């Protein structure tokens, strides 16, 4: 079939800027074919090339004695002892989820699971960080329902427990929701599979589902802003099939155990193109593909369509040729496609043949090495004025406002649609800080959390970046885990705007500082830019997914407060109300600076908590909503009341960092206070758990009444 002529319009439709096209001409010394243009656009879009973010991502700390493999592979790999490793990553599926929430979110989950099992790990935990527009916005309820159903539909059928996540609402997400999917798996540390091809003349094998026309151009779509033509983009969203993914998982793990795999790479964004180039590039080899051999779901597919399809549940593998029969038998067993579609070649060449015609003939290494990289201009956002006006509200009325807001209400409506317990190793389900999953067959456990406070990042990107890392670190500590490493999912607006780029640069600086200070390197991640609609950007949302290790389940701090327990705060409280949840929800004010993060205090206070865990019955970190919200949540989960002594709004709702709320019996409280004095860590008794009322200073209400509000608000908001 004749390919279309290359015109200026066609180049622009591929998201390539004129100067980028000029670079293509320079590399090739000729005009590209249509298929070649498609391949360049797939490799050079923002989503795949990180062209605006690379310069800054390089500044993040990615190493540590625990790190087996940092960023650059499908997911990060971290040592957890006893010959095992945890493999994890978080990735966004924002643009597709806004266009088609169910399938967009489902395939986001599918993609991140493949990133984990393509490295040889069986997925053991998933999380999802979701940001939606105002509850009253006409699209919000539809998006929430579709996204949650899509995540559940895929993860539940695949059989991975969803153990944590976040759901927030803010008008800045009205035109762009965020769906950040995290997955973690466990593998033998000496049996990790990487993507670099090796050996010349080795068969390149296509595995999994057939290729269709779905998702053609998806990565390019995800690298642009939205406008009123959004409905036309629906065909760029892929359709997920968790049943095939589950079979692909089992087949891949059997295949890996058989010793047949030289290297393997999942087909994610830009499908066959990205995976083949990645394998060749990392192995310093060329790749030749014969597309006639690609299993196809639809008739008369062109080379262009096959190279750009984002059909799901597919893998590309370089196979040990002598193992072909054994490998094929495994895929036959699972009724999945297995097709030799090409081979590795010695020269630096990406050669695509279809119907005996050469459809593309490109210098392979230059597709990534010559990809554009931008040092985009950026400006530091103006420092917000400190909060000066005093706020006044009855403390319990303030609490009621918070727990009635869907961002802070009980989220059972969401997590009860997710299978949180499949695999039988879930120790802590969603709803109470970090999720905890046993390492199957051992006495160890892993803790998972996902955190960011976008309001802070908007007000002060550096402090907000630090805070996201610090909060994730605290959430791991609060369940008794030793923080190991993190993954970052950086969601921002249009990087071509200097103020947006400034948010990005600042957040990265803060994240890097905090990760260094807390020894929690970034081992994987994803950048999602252009989250804008009609020029309106989202709140800068650098989601931090973090993983911690419990050497023994005995180390778990997993209890709930009991009648007559003392409530104590570890860490200093200054009553910082700037950018607080109370201001935003009760007064509609997003003013003041983000709370300052003292990383030395974070480390000291967290270490103190871990050292003194024997004295604690329950613990939680203090974050947005402050002491009042944390104490209410803890008490409500235990089904008992709580009384906090002070009625001061700063004390109750301030969002000072480096703090934890803990519950101790009388002896534990005395011991903790003494230990704090000895270690120079502020520890203060702030109230008492028990009874059936919630009292904040002089203001009080029945627990039952607040509990009903708290448990009904989310469903009501998305009804």
């Amino acid at each position, binding site marked *: 079939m004749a390919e279309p002529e290359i015109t200026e319009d066609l180049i622009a439709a591929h998201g390539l800027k004129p100067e980028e096209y000029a670079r293509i001409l320079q590399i090739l010394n000729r005009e590209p074919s249509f298929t070649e243009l498609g391949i360049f656009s797939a490799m050079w879009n923002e989503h795949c090339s990180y062209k605006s973010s690379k310069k800054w991502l390089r500044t993040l700390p990615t190493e540590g004695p625990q790190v087996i493999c940092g960023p650059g592979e499908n997911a990060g790999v971290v040592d957890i002892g006893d010959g095992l490793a945890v493999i994890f990553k978080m990735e966004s599926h924002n643009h597709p989820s806004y266009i088609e929430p169910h399938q967009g979110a489902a395939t986001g989950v599918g993609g991140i699971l493949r990133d984990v099992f393509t490295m040889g790990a069986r997925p053991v935990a998933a999380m999802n960080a979701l940001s939606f527009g105002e509850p009253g916005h006409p699209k919000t309820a539809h998006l929430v329902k579709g996204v949650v*159903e899509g995540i559940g539909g895929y993860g539940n059928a695949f059989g991975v427990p969803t153990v944590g996540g976040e759901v927030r609402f803010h008008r800045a997400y009205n035109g762009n929701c965020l769906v950040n999917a995290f997955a973690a798996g466990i593998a033998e540390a000496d049996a990790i599979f990487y993507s670099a091809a090796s050996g010349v003349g080795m068969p390149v094998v296509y595995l999994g589902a057939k290729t269709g026309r779905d998702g053609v151009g998806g990565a390019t779509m995800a690298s642009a802003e939205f406008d009123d033509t959004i409905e036309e983009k629906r065909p760029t969203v892929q359709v997920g099939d968790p049943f095939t993914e589950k079979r692909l998982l089992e087949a891949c793990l059997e295949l890996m155990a058989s010793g047949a795999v030289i290297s393997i790479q999942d087909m994610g964004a830009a499908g066959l193109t990205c995976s083949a180039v990645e394998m060749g590039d990392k192995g310093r080899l060329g790749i030749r593909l014969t597309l006639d051999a690609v299993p196809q779901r639809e008739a008369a597919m062109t080379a262009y369509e096959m190279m750009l399809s984002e059909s799901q549940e597919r893998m590309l593998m370089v196979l040990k040729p002598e193992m072909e029969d054994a490998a094929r038998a495994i895929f036959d067993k699972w009724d999945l496609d297995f097709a030799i579609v090409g081979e590795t070649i010695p020269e630096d060449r990406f050669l695509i043949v279809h119907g005996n015609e050469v459809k593309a003939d490109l210098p392979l290494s230059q597709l990534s090495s010559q990809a554009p990289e931008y040092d985009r201009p950026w400006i530091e956002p103006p420092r917000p004025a400190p909060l000066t006006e005093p706020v006044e509200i009855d403390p319990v009325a303030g609490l009621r406002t918070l727990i009635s807001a869907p961002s802070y209400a009980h989220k059972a409506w969401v997590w009860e649609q997710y299978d949180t317990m499949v695999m039988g190793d879930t120790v802590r389900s969603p709803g109470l800080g970090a999720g905890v999953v046993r390492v199957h067959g051992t006495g160890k456990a892993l803790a998972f959390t996902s955190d960011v406070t976008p309001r802070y990042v908007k007000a002060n990107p550096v402090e907000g970046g630090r805070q996201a890392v610090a909060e994730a670190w605290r959430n791991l500590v609060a369940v008794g885990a030793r923080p190991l490493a993190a993954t970052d999912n950086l969601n921002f607006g249009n990087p071509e705007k200097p103020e947006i780029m400034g948010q990005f640069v600042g957040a990265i600086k803060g994240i890097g500082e905090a990760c260094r200070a807390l020894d929690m390197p970034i081992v994987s991640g994803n950048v999602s830019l252009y989250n804008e609609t009609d020029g309106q950007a989202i709140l800068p949302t650098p989601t931090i997914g973090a993983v911690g290790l419990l050497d023994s389940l005995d180390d778990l701090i997993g209890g709930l407060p009991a009648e007559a327990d003392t409530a104590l705060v570890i860490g200093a409280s200054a009553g910082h109300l700037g950018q607080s949840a109370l201001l935003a929800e009760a007064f509609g004010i997003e003013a003041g600076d983000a709370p300052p993060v003292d990383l030395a205090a974070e480390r000291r206070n967290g270490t103190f908590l871990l050292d003194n865990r024997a004295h604690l019955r329950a613990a939680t970190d203090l974050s947005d909503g402050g002491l009042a919200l944390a104490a209410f949540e803890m008490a409500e989960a235990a089904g008992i009341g709580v009384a906090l002594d002070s009625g001061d709004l700063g004390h109750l709702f301030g969002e000072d960092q480096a703090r934890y709320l803990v519950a101790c019996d009388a002896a534990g409280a005395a011991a903790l206070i003494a230990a704090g004095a000895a270690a120079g860590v502020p520890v203060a008794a702030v109230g008492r758990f028990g009874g059936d009322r919630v009292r904040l200073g002089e203001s009080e209400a029945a627990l039952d009444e607040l509990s009903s509000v708290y448990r009904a608000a989310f469903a009501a908001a998305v009804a």
Partner: protein
Amino acid sequence: MKAAVITFPGSNCDRDLAVAFAAAGAEVARVWHKEDALPAGTDVVGIPGGFSYGDYLRCGAIAAQSPVMAAVRAHAARGGYVLGICNGFQVLTESGLLPGALMRNASLKFICKRVGLRVATADSAYTAGWQAGQRISLPVAHHDGNFAIDAEGLARLKGEDRIAFTYVDNPNGSVADIAGILSDNRRVLGLMPHPERAIDPAQGGTDGAMLFRALMGAFVPV
């Protein structure tokens, strides 16, 4: 006791069920659905939860046609024990080994949570460790757990004391709050809740362990 746990494509609680049988002291074999025979000496067949064949046609309908199911039917006909959990329960109704059908939850949503159950009869190898009427707690996790049966079938289940478990607070719309039922010889049990997810204190409950222990008891000479 020798247990055989079947794996269909899309099963995802097969390992969990094998772990639960083994924890109760059973010898466990894993059986691929394309096998046409069960391992020699199999006492109990476990049909696990999950999404066999993606639940794409009707939950359990395609799995019920798998080669191994002929062997499972023959095993049941010989008076062998068969335990179907969640998707396994759906496979058993689709196979005709248990009456009724599992429809979409009344809420139309997937539901995963711990629920209260009543042990409706202690008269089975599975429930012999409890008292009839005893309240226990087990997790559910399903999209299609809404048990339906015609009036005559329901009357028969009731009349023959074959309702094994009922929900305290019905999560899915099941008729007569039914969570699990027995075959007429009381040796085939299908239930939507997941006893295999409640065998260890770390999982937040141990009520499920009783079912496996009681079943073991059926094979220990008194």
